[in-house]
């Protein structure tokens, strides 16, 4: 039955269109992602002193992540639903393992050495947490009842707190928001949302007092007043603002950045790449980039609305929402309206792990969109 349907489509459409349909990919998403990866490559070429080794490594990562995305796009969403619990549990176990035996990189314990390669379990949990929460809520009433909200919150808190312990504020924020967004989409009452937000704000001083490490406190203080220590901790933010501001409306042109090339801007190819982008392409370029991001987000939300079962819908919505949080937190910190937390600019910053998770997320979105039980029309 299914095969016949496909064959019919094949006749109706062009050859390539049919092939792509066969491939379970979503063309608009694919175009948006491709544009971002292209941009990433260009930025790396510009900031990495044209080092080919760096470019090859990044290309290899893109390749691997891309293949994973296509593979996941072919998996039926029912499989994701079925494996939600084991994948989530595995993620939590790995997080525990990281705390016990993990490698220490840059002062935080985030990596698990598997012999052949190093693996960051906190990346995996960014997807499996919303899977778990979506699976749980889909099995109960929508909107969720109080006790279901309580259990779901527990599912979110476990990995979040484990990552806070590493310590990695940026990632824990992303995991928490990925889980929380599922609750939001499931119809958490507005009143409850409001109360929670107010409650968390009230708890912030306690968090400051008991959980935050000195360097995290420093970042917040620096954010509030970067001029206080312009040569030390405020250096990053000030140099980043100079880079962005000096780009002006039209930018200095590709590879025309002076701030990052003269080493004024640290971490120019990773977390602070947006500053380089803004310096090279100006306000016009920034608006273009934001437009691409918004296009991908809009397409993702459309896929979520179109999804046919509760689980797929909740998961899709959450993945898109997390993607937005990435974009907003990174750009916000680079332009100095949010404190510095270690969140990369999605799909553009140099580095492998976040790219793999993000593209895996888009793979799931494509799977949700392309595996439909009944075709209307």
């Amino acid at each position: 039955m299914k095969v016949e349907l496909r064959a019919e489509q094949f006749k109706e459409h062009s050859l390539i269109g049919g092939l792509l349909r066969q491939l379970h990919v979503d063309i608009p998403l694919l175009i948006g992602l491709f544009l971002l990866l292209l941009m990433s490559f260009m930025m790396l070429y510009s900031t990495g002193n044209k080092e080919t080794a760096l470019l090859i490594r990044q290309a290899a990562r893109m390749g691997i992540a891309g293949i994973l995305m296509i593979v996941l796009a072919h998996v039926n969403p029912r499989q994701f639903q079925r494996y939600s619990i084991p994948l989530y549990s595995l993620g939590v176990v790995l997080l525990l393992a990281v705390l016990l035996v993990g490698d220490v990189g840059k002062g935080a314990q985030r990596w698990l050495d598997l012999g052949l390669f190093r693996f960051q379990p906190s990346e995996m949990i960014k997807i499996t947490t919303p899977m778990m929460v979506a699976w749980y809520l889909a099995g109960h009433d929508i909107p969720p009842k109080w006790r279901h909200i309580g259990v779901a919150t527990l599912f979110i808190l476990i990995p979040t707190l484990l990552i806070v312990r590493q310590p990695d504020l940026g990632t824990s924020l992303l995991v928490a928001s990925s889980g929380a967004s599922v609750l939001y989409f499931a119809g958490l009452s507005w009143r409850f949302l409001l109360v929670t937000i107010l409650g968390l704000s009230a708890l912030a001083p306690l968090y400051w007092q008991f959980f935050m490490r000195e360097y995290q406190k420093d970042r917040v203080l620096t954010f509030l007043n970067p001029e206080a220590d312009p040569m030390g901790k405020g250096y990053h933010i000030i140099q980043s603002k100079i880079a962005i501001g000096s780009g002006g409306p039209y930018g200095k042109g590709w590879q025309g950045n002076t701030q990052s090339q003269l080493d004024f801007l640290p971490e120019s190819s990773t977390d602070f790449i947006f500053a380089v982008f803004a310096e090279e392409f100006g306000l016009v370029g920034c608006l273009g980039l934001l437009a691409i991001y918004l296009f991908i987000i809009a397409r993702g939300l459309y896929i979520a609305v179109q999804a046919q079962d509760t689980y797929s819908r909740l998961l899709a919505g959450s993945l898109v929402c997390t993607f937005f949080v990435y974009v907003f937190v990174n750009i916000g910190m680079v332009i100095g309206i949010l404190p510095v937390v270690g969140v990369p600019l999605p799909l553009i910053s140099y580095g492998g792990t976040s790219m793999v998770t993000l593209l895996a997320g888009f793979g799931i979105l494509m799977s949700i969109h392309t595996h439909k039980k009944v075709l209307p029309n």
Partner: protein
Amino acid sequence: MRRYQVIKDRFLENRIFLSRTVILFAFMLLLVAGLVSRLVYLQVLGHKRYHNMATNNRIKVTSIPPTRGIIYDKHGRILAENLASYSLELIPDQVTDMEETLQRLQLALSIPPEKIAAFNKQRKHYKHFDSIPLLLQLDKTEVAKFAVLRHTFPGVDIHARLLRHYPYAELTAHLVGYVGRINERELKTLPEAEYRAMHTIGKTGIERAYEDVLRGHAGYAELETNAQGKPISELGRIDSIPGADIYLTIDMDLQRTAYDALADYNGAVVALDLDTGGVLVQVSKASFDPNLFVTGISYKDYDRLNNSKNKPLFDRVLRGQYPPGSTLKPFIGLAGLEYGVASMQQTLFCPGYYRLPNKDHKYRDWKKWGHGKVNLDDAITQSCDVYFYDLSLALGIDKISTFLHKFGFGQKTGIDLKGEKSGLLPSREWKRIHREQVWYPGETLITGIGQGFTQVTPLQLARATGTLAKQGNIITPYLAERIIYENRAAEVEHPIQKQIELKFGNVQDIINAMVHVVHSPRGTAKRIAKGIDYQIAGKTGTAQVYTVKQDEEYDEAEIKFNMRDHALFIAFAPADNPKIAVAVIAEHGSHGSSIAAPIAAKVIKEYLGMENKQ
């Protein structure tokens, strides 16, 4: 709650989801609008300001290196200081053609190629617009030569820098140590902020052990620079905090006396102040000029030092491990008394050799015809081996190792320097683990006269001697007495001294015997007793390097110098109120009595002479 009961239908669920999505997307657009307005503020309204900051005037943060602390001896004589010196430095960003510039500089100033190589290596790790030294310690003619050519070398300039200098050179080389260029491996682990403007780091000795104290803290200057990186104005500044000065317990007069007294022998002299545990003398010979290392030692010089048969780079005081020879006998004797195995009255006939029951092997005494009838006092005074063979056998290896362990043998002394060796105190357990063999009784015998497996460092020997002198009050030797910070002086805290439980009478008997070594007509070190109005307690030792075969004659003249025995001597004085403990090892000095004892005597006499004058 009740109103949700009906919502099991998909329609309502879809409606909720759709409305949530729309609201969320609107909220996202709002946030993005926030980002955009901030971008407009930075890139349109603030463009001019930031543009100026970025292109015309760049802000550069430079690190201001602190001055390194001075090292003094106990009387305030400078052991390590900072001297101004001129260096030729390059700022790579201002040099248009590096290859060509280096070639021309080489022609103009005759720079050795290894300096160029070192410079190129260092260049990789520096920030933009940092000045990197190429040649240090320029002399006046070189400065003048370059001054004339300066305009032809953009980006190259002469700077005044402070260079570490060690006025006593060889005399303090191992003890004070030296600073040297930071290498790539160190660069990875060092706090970047502190070392950004520094080119050297403490490599050995006090310079290494007290690096954190001597270094101080780097300051910063925020400079406005033009596009070429030249500073235009200073915007802000945090001054560096100079490193603290350190006063050592070393007495340079004594140190020189000991160094000179060793004369042509390689070896070590350690003297401890028994009132404090401070190290008065720490000589390791052969030595080297540490100033060679400050600016980066040349391959040729390093090769010469490294391959010399005298091993000048080797710190014998901390890392030299020697058999203690007969200097171990007072400790074995004390063990005998403490365990009740020996008494002062018991005598033994020494025929010049000793045999284990039912064995043929002869354990020889150094005196071929024997010492005749000896008690413990005689045995220490005359260094009778046979007495100690018998005593060790009666004690057994377990008691010997347990007792010697208390005096710090086989353990690091815990002196405030790095790289100390722990020596070796053999035991049944040790042999089983490291040699995978059982312990043989014959090994107990030779352990009892300080031969066999036992190895001690000169520092350990001095410490054990001092501990004996102080009736079992175990000393932790140290070098840093006082640290003078910018605004306060701090006495260095030293570990609490521990007490070994010993019977007073026993220790006194051993000390008396050691006094007899020096002051009795039959004592092995009687020649040093002249001209003093107090008593020295001592013990000679000869550590075998070459093993004499059974019934073979030992003819000193026939044995090559480097096969000769090491000469050892331990001593403290005055015997009734010990102030100083000394350990001397003269490599291949043959006899403790003739070579090592006079060296120790010179140090003691000079120190106690000084003490009396004060």
